[in-house]
């Protein structure tokens, strides 16, 4: 395996807009809001940015194609800007571009920007749209919740977990995210909920009820990265560096070959092994201080804790009910509210996850700050469907850890 990018790139500054129903803002307004925070945090002038990557998932709903909308919104000085799209992992993909540019030496300072403006469709949930001319001929009439809901039926069947026990663990996940979101001023949803409310909510796609699903939001997040040396030269201390970035894409095995049982993510497991190796982590359950995982649906978070090798197979329900991933638990997961409550503006989500790691590691997370600053944080940004998806993992941590 390649030597990897551990500690080759440091985060110089980050910003994140308020997520939510931003009725009066265009995508460009959200980008600028996140960018101003990030550039001030970085303490540089935008002329010092050598290159930028721009992540959006459903650009036809807002900015349209290409990287030009980013360059125009920020009036970037004709630097290279690349637009990337990889389903809901588009934000992480933008960050990966910027980090790799710095790690390679091609850029001294690079920027990743993610944005999505989804509340212009006229209805809740992700836009219903074509999946491509050929796919439309034979793909099931599947929504995101309907696709992810099937994890629950397959997981129950495989691990012999009753539908009721599983549903209760899923409810715990959502209650936790609402508790956490209530402490996050930038979160889309800040209300607390009860188990009764979750269990009795309208069904969206069996067995996922309304509170098992994250909403969709408007929002933007920005990361500015550089080398540790330049960061220090710019006066930064206690650097947060990138320990690993790994991506895995489905190759059709889950969708077309009978070796997958539908209860877990093949891609997450493949990417996690590589990420831990790249970061030099041998015992993730003990070494990772906190997680932000792609909790598009409660069941996704549940199986992901096994796919990241934190909970052993079939035991996530127990860890969840034991409070292991609660804000005050041993390994908090979604301490910022997650996709569920911070919100899910697709292209911004992957960068938003790293933003929370960055705040926590600098002791700047306000009311939700962990007493003990995290050492390693891991983000899991997933795009697509359980049977064909993109999984993007990032591990960040304190320099030298």
């Amino acid at each position, binding site marked *: 395996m390649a030597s990897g990018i551990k500690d080759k790139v440091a985060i110089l500054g980050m910003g994140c807009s308020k997520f939510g129903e931003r009725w009066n803002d265009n995508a460009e307004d959200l980008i600028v809001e996140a960018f101003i925070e990030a550039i001030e945090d970085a303490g540089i002038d935008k002329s010092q940015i050598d290159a930028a990557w721009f992540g959006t998932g459903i650009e036809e709903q807002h900015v349209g194609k290409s990287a030009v909308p980013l360059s125009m919104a920020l009036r970037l000085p004709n630097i290279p800007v690349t637009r990337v799209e990889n389903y809901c992992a588009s934000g992480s993909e933008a960050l990966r571009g910027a980090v790799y540019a710095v790690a390679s030496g091609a850029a001294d300072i690079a920027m990743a920007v993610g944005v999505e403006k989804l509340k212009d469709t006229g209805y809740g949930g992700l836009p219903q749209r074509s999946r491509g001319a050929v796919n439309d001929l034979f793909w099931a009439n599947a*929504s995101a919740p309907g696709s992810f809901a099937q994890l629950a039926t397959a997981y129950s069947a495989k691990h012999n977990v009753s539908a009721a026990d599983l549903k209760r663990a899923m409810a715990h996940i959502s209650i936790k995210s609402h508790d956490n979101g209530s402490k996050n001023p930038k979160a889309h949803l800040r209300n607390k909920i009860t188990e009764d409310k979750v269990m009795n909510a309208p069904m969206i796609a069996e067995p996922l009820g309304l509170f098992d699903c994250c909403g969709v939001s408007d929002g933007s997040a920005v990361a500015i990265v550089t080398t540790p040396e330049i960061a220090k030269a710019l006066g930064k201390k206690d650097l947060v560096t990138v320990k690993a970035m790994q991506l895995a894409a489905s190759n059709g095995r889950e969708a077309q070959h009978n070796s997958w049982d539908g209860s877990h993510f093949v891609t997450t497991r493949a990417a996690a092994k590589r990420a831990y190796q790249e970061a030099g982590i041998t015992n993730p359950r003990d070494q990772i201080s906190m997680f932000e995982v792609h909790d598009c649906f409660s069941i996704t978070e549940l199986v992901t804790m096994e796919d990241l090798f934190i909970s052993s197979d079939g035991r996530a329900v127990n860890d969840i009910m034991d409070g292991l991933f609660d804000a005050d638990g041993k390994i908090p997961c979604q301490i910022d509210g997650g996709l569920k409550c911070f919100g899910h503006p697709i292209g911004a989500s992957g960068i938003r996850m790293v933003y929370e790691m960055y705040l926590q590691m600098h002791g700047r997370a306000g009311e939700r700050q962990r007493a003990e600053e995290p050492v390693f944080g891991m983000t899991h940004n997933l795009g697509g469907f359980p049977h064909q998806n993109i999984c993007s993992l990032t591990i960040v941590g304190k320099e030298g850890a």
Partner: protein
Amino acid sequence: MEVGILAYGGYIPKSRLQRDQIFKAHAWFNPGLKGLSRGERSIANWDEDSVTMAVESARDCVAPDQRENISAVYMASTTFPFQDRQNAGIVADALNMKSNIQTLDFTSSMRAGTAALTVALQASKGAEGPILLTSAENRMTKAGSALELTTGDGAASFLIGSGNIVARLLGSHSESVDFVDHFRGESAEYDYTWEERWVKEEGYMKIVPTAVNSVLEKTGVSASDITTFCFPVAARNVAAGLAKKLGISEDAVADNLQSNCGEAGSAHILIMLAKALQEAKPGDKILIASFGQGCDALIFETTDAIKTVRPNTGITGSLANGRADSNYNRFLAFNDGLRMDLGIRAEVDKNTGLTTHYRNRYMAQRMVGGKCSKCGTAQFPKSNICVNENCGAINTQEDYSFADKIAQMNSFTADRLTYSPDPPAYYGMIQFEEGGRLMSDFADISPDDELTVGMKMRMVFRVKDYDTKRDFRRYFWKAVPVNATQKGSE
């Protein structure tokens, strides 16, 4: 060379709308409909049309390995989904037939079914192989009309030719009279009907006897020898009245399926014939007579083969496999009888690239995938590189049909977010017993059905999407439970 019926099959859609529910909705306007309010009528699901029903009945009639020598596919209907695109051609495609066949549509009259049958019997004498004849109807009826109550949806198919026939044609006769009891003009959605008493007295009771007496005379069969007399019209006691007038035994009058199906337009006489064959003994003489701008009358005599050549399900099995449906509003919604607010999600443009469609027709219409000749892995869709990670061979996949393969269901959901004309949308991962899998739409699932991981599924040909802007529809295959539970539903 003696020709006749080599095989037969039928299909009646699962859902049976309770007529009292239709009547209840209209009693305020037309209390006179009460006389038609008993029993139930079959209704096509939202994703069924005359082509899909024809396909299902044809599959019931001829197994995949019996399609090799078929020389022609005829389809009869007055409710074709396409005015200009051969509907029989879609049926042939769905049945994964070769291109060296004749395909032909018959339409424009309630006699279309018997017309196609008569032509098939004549043509098969000189044909290179048997002719597959299928007929199906999915008639639109005005809310509050008598036809809404008396009509049903369904299909029947016959394999016509020589050889091991189950029924030989003794003779046929056609009368052509431009008697317009009802019509549907070029731009009309619904039939326009004239007074039933006139239709009965001047139409049924005068034109039909002329045709029947002629065929009896031609064949030398005496009316009293007729074992089964099939006459498809819904009006009560007409068949019995005709039998009496013609000297046919009262016992020979076949049930016109008004109580449990309804009259399926031009297909109904063939549905009745398929049912009669399913219930026949060797040596039975079956007289069928259709009515529509004249009358076609045909007499068949069953052979010993009637005992051994059986459809998979047939009309009898299909009729038994019904599910009571009390939701008249849903029926209206499926048939554009209500201006429903379907939500913005329903507005997605379903345009189909005809190039895309043609290039992928084996996948999309025939459900042909690939089987790797190196490792044997069956996969859908067919692709250039084998999906088996331990193989990965390039250009090794041979055509492999999934349409008739049994699958096991691995996971499922009932989705209320995605747009479906009949929410929730049911779909899930199905895994074929001989390899291959698909995240597949399910069809004909009711909330009362118990879906369980591991249950067996089979594929059915259905409408995938309607492009309402361009009046195109694309078809694909969906999964249904092999042993569907049969319960009532609201």
